[in-house]
């Protein structure tokens, strides 16, 4: 553990700040949605489709409805308005209308007095369908098909979104390239697997209002979707976010069950709870897209990058979700941290009759990053230079622009490379370890908040923070930012306390409640620290101004001579002349009563003017360089990552405890995808919808992690900070893959890399007569 004292005159920021809700969480007192009870609450249950793709002929709910103890049975026609997280792709409904599109699609919703009654009612619903052709191969889905999954598929195919971009002249670059490398990556679908299953409670009251408590990362988008589908104005809906037991993107879409739960509440006039079991969670999915990508890299004789020629086919599952963004991201997130003067991308996202894919931590950036970094490892070998040197030669400089018009401001990527090279002992290890042991480098970058807010009136701020202080001196903080465990409440409180100069315990972050919380777009795209942080800083500065005015009046010195001390306001050149925080506060309150203050953040205009130009633009980017050490049992293919050195540029880390936690957790999640996590489909059927068969890594599989935080202050980030929630994931996978190559001489491009693939890879290499490291 480092020093508890933060640098640069801060009292909190930059240090290690324990999470403010920690004492509630460690005692079981933190309230998650399923912990809440409402008087007279009913149990909501969903009938899920056992068919992968079928037209609904009829649904007979009469027997279910007449079962004693059943309060409501709803089918799709009741609220048929389509919705979706992106305004341009509203293709979901709360309950299926006309068709079912995957095994697990919701056919009907029941509210009953208890769980057994609800289950019996579900079993009494009779559904007749006409089966349709099942589509499970996205590569087939790019062509016209029988029974396309949605009408909106391009030209009778199942293509939901197609992106074609070309910057510079890729063919000319390849024509003059001294070296080329091609990597074709294949990535199984993975899912968030947060520990808290989804849960929603809804209650409609006779005053015409609807209150919804839900395990959501984006309360605002849920608020909008509820309004659109249920036909209620937003001001009559109140969305409350209790504690959320992890999200990682899986709770960022407004989800059908949330709307169905609210519909049941409206129908019955009683509170209704829908609680998912683990299979429900897996079937709801919205995890990382199964992906096939193909990257050709052109470079000159010195390894300077000339061009990327990239294509991707990604399996979207049954709905659009974030898919349009995903399709762009799978291309444009190849554009850092290196200068690539020519770039062509062809991406297609294809509907299949599988649970929907969506946004998962390091959304759209993880798979393409793997392919890029593995290709660069190969390129370095071909050119005959060290992988670090290859990256140094190509690093994007600070304050530069990529060929697709990303505005790069701060970057400490070179510092990341230097730090991790030294700490890992790279120079004495690379290609020098015995056969079966390896060391590998993987790098990355990620957006620090999406510049373009989705589903939102563009002229409004992306984040707003309100403060209220009354005579007790406690500062209530309101914002719709959504803490899902990453520590954003703590950061919010710490920023306010730091700016106002008060003890952290004075600051109370109020639970997200749309009746009182000003809109913030929530926890996705790694936007919270940057955007909420800036809004919080501005709100706190606004409050400080009023307090300084109060102090100024009491002290008889002009405001510009007043300085913030610890719970005091002092005269800058005479620190002995001061008033306490409470004295200044009470003076400032004399005219208005309780003080209120507000701050907001909007990202500046950026990006080119071509179609899709905003995708991937962000007010800042994080950068990473990771080194992994692995040991492989070449006979069984089993391997273990022994250590990971993680150099990360998040600008100025504001809470080192949280940043380390994000890095360690990201490495865990990245290793999961690399080593064994997979949504295992046979056709349309998910074979492993359980935490037993979905292989989240255990403690003994985790490497020792050494975090090296080397960023410099970002010019626009709050106090110089950038994101640390998603960028730390992407470098993990290629670092290990490149270490596996160093260990056994095999390039793995098919994830997860199970032991059997390792054995097969080694056998193939041996058959081809390519011995490795004196094996």
């Amino acid at each position, binding site marked *: 553990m480092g020093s508890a004292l933060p640098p640069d005159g801060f009292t909190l920021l930059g240090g290690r700040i324990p999470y403010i809700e920690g004492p509630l969480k460690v005692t079981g007192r933190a309230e998650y949605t399923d912990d809440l009870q409402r008087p007279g609450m009913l149990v909501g249950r969903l009938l*899920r489709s*056992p*068919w992968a793709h079928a037209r609904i002929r009829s649904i007979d709910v009469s027997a279910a409805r007449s079962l004693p103890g059943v309060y409501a049975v709803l089918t799709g026609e009741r609220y048929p308005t389509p919705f979706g997280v992106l305004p341009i792709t509203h293709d979901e409904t709360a309950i299926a209308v006309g068709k079912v599109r995957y*095994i697990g699609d919701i056919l009907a919703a029941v509210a009953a007095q208890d*769980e*057994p009654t609800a289950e019996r009612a579900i079993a009494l619903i009779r559904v007749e369908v006409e089966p349709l052709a099942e589509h499970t191969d996205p590569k087939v889905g790019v062509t016209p098909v029988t029974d396309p999954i949605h009408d909106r598929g391009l030209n009778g195919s199942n293509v939901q979104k197609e992106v074609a971009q070309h910057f510079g002249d890729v063919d000319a670059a390849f024509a003059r390239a001294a070296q080329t490398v091609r990597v074709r990556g294949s990535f199984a679908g993975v899912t968030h697997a947060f520990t808290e299953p989804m849960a929603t409670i809804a209650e409609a009251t006779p005053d015409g209002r609807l209150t919804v408590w839900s395990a959501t990362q984006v309360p605002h988008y849920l608020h909008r979707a509820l309004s659109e589908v249920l036909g209620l104005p937003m001001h009559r809906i109140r969305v409350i976010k209790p504690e959320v037991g992890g999200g990682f993107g899986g709770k960022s879409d407004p989800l059908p069950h949330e709307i169905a739960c609210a519909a049941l509440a409206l129908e019955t006039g009683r509170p209704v709870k829908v609680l998912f*079991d683990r*299979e429900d969670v897996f079937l709801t999915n919205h995890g990382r897209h199964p992906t096939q990508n193909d990257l050709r890299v052109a470079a000159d004789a010195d390894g300077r990058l000339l061009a990327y020629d990239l294509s991707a086919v990604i399996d979207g599952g049954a709905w659009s979700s974030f898919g349009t963004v995903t399709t762009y991201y799978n291309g444009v997130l190849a554009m850092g941290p290196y200068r690539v003067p020519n770039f062509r991308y062809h991406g297609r996202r294809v509907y299949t009759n599988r649970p929907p894919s969506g946004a998962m931590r390091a959304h759209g950036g993880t798979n393409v990053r793997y392919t890029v970094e593995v290709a660069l490892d190969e390129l370095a070998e071909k050119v005959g230079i060290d992988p670090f040197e290859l990256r140094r030669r190509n690093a994007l400089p600070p304050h530069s622009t990529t060929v697709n018009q990303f505005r790069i401001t701060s970057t400490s990527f070179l510092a990341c490379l230097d730090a991790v090279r030294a700490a890992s002992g790279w120079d004495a290890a690379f290609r020098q370890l015995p056969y079966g042991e390896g060391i590998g480098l993987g790098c990355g970058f990620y957006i620090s908040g999406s510049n373009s807010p989705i589903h939102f009136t563009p002229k409004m701020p992306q984040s707003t923070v309100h403060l209220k202080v009354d005579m007790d001196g406690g500062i209530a903080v309101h914002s719709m930012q959504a803490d899902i465990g990453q520590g954003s409440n703590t950061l919010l409180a710490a920023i306010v306390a730091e700016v106002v100069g008060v003890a952290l315990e004075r600051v109370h972050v109020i639970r997200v409640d749309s009746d009182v919380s000003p809109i913030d777009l929530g926890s996705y795209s790694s936007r919270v620290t940057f955007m909420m942080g800036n809004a919080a800083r501005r709100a706190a500065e606004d409050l400080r101004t009023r307090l300084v005015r109060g102090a100024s009046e009491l002290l008889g010195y002009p405001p510009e001579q007043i300085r913030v001390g610890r719970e005091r306001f002092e005269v800058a050149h005479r620190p002995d002349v001061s008033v306490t925080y409470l004295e200044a506060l009470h003076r400032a309150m004399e005219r208005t009563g309780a003080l209120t203050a507000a701050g907001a953040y909007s990202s500046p205009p950026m990006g080119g003017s071509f179609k899709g130009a905003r995708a991937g633009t962000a007010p800042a980017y994080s950068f990473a360089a990771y080194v992994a050490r692995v040991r492989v049992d070449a*006979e*069984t293919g089993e391997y273990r990552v022994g250590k990971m050195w993680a150099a990360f540029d998040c600008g100025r880390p504001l809470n080192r405890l949280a940043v380390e936690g994000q890095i360690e957790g990201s490495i865990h999640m990245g290793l999961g995808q690399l*080593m*064994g996590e997979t949504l*295992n489909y046979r056709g349309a*059927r998910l*074979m*492993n*919808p*359980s935490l*037993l*068969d979905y*292989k*989240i*890594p*255990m403690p*003994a*599989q985790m490497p020792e992690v050494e975090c090296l935080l080397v960023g410099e202050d970002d010019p626009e980030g709050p106090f110089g900070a950038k994101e640390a929630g998603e960028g730390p994931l992407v470098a993990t996978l290629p670092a290990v893959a490149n270490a596996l190559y160093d260990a056994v001489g095999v390039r793995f491009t098919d994830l997860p890399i*199970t*032991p*059997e693939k390792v*054995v097969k890879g080694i056998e193939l290499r041996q058959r081809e007569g390519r011995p490795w490291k004196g094996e």
Partner: protein
Amino acid sequence: MHLDPFELHRPSSLEEALRLATAHAGGFDYLAGGTDLLPNYKMHLNLRPHLIALDAVAELRGRGLERLGAMERLADLERDTELARAYPGFADALAEVATPLVRASGTLGGNLLVETRCFFFNQSHFWRESLGYCLKAEGDRCHVVPQKERCYATFSGDLAPVLMALDAEAELAGPGGRRRVPLGAIYDAAGDGIRRHRLGPGEIVVAVHLPAAARARASAYLKLRVRPSFDFPELGAAAAAELDGGRVRSLAVAVGGLETYPRRFDELTAPLVGEHLSDDRLRAFSEAVMRAVRPVHNTFLAPDYRRKMTRVYVRRAVEKVRERSGAAA
């Protein structure tokens, strides 16, 4: 996920348990630690209206080097240093069962009789219904090896292979009386694979007995799985041997996690008795075990890999035994 209603009986003697079993013949399950039965019940797999809990039956308790009560908790067996010294392979296996939390409740008898597992069986009612069920529960066909006669669910206990290799016997008590059989005989190698054992109606595994010869043997158990905890074996290889300066006095090898029942390879080990356990012989033997097993595609790792690894894991298990015997290759 609530359990469907059943009537819970909690006998305090073996006699009472057997009486209850007779009274509810065909409509009950014995409940030991519950860590295998209750998840299956939550998934509505082969529910019975009566559960007979065995936790209060004193005759099923007790642990010593010669006799292990079937209701001994795995965590207690694991903590027993005397047992670990006498049967190191058994200690290997205990430490590999599921997780510490499962071992805190799970029992010896429960692990020996753990329900066989399959991707098409260990699923929710909804999931199985969407596929028309399977031979092992409510259906009439197998989805792994498409036909209607035989179930290919995989035996997934960790303890049976090593206990079989140690020549353990099962003490059984049923309404018809008591008997002792070699542990391997409780598994129905010739059956249809649907039932995991060949115990008589109401018959209980009372205890496992280990002969004096078992204490003269070194033993080892190695388990293949994706994660170092939680996962059932994709392959479990057990070996036990008495070596006389590298020469085989006795050798037994058994595997689990590959087929519907755990299996011992006496016909392959017999020729090694009296021989020097050289690396070459060991390799040939392991190869023969590999050729003998027929895993199917119903667990996480592919069957051809599990088969290939059988050769490696069996060899390594025997090597470990050799090492523990202090014998040279």
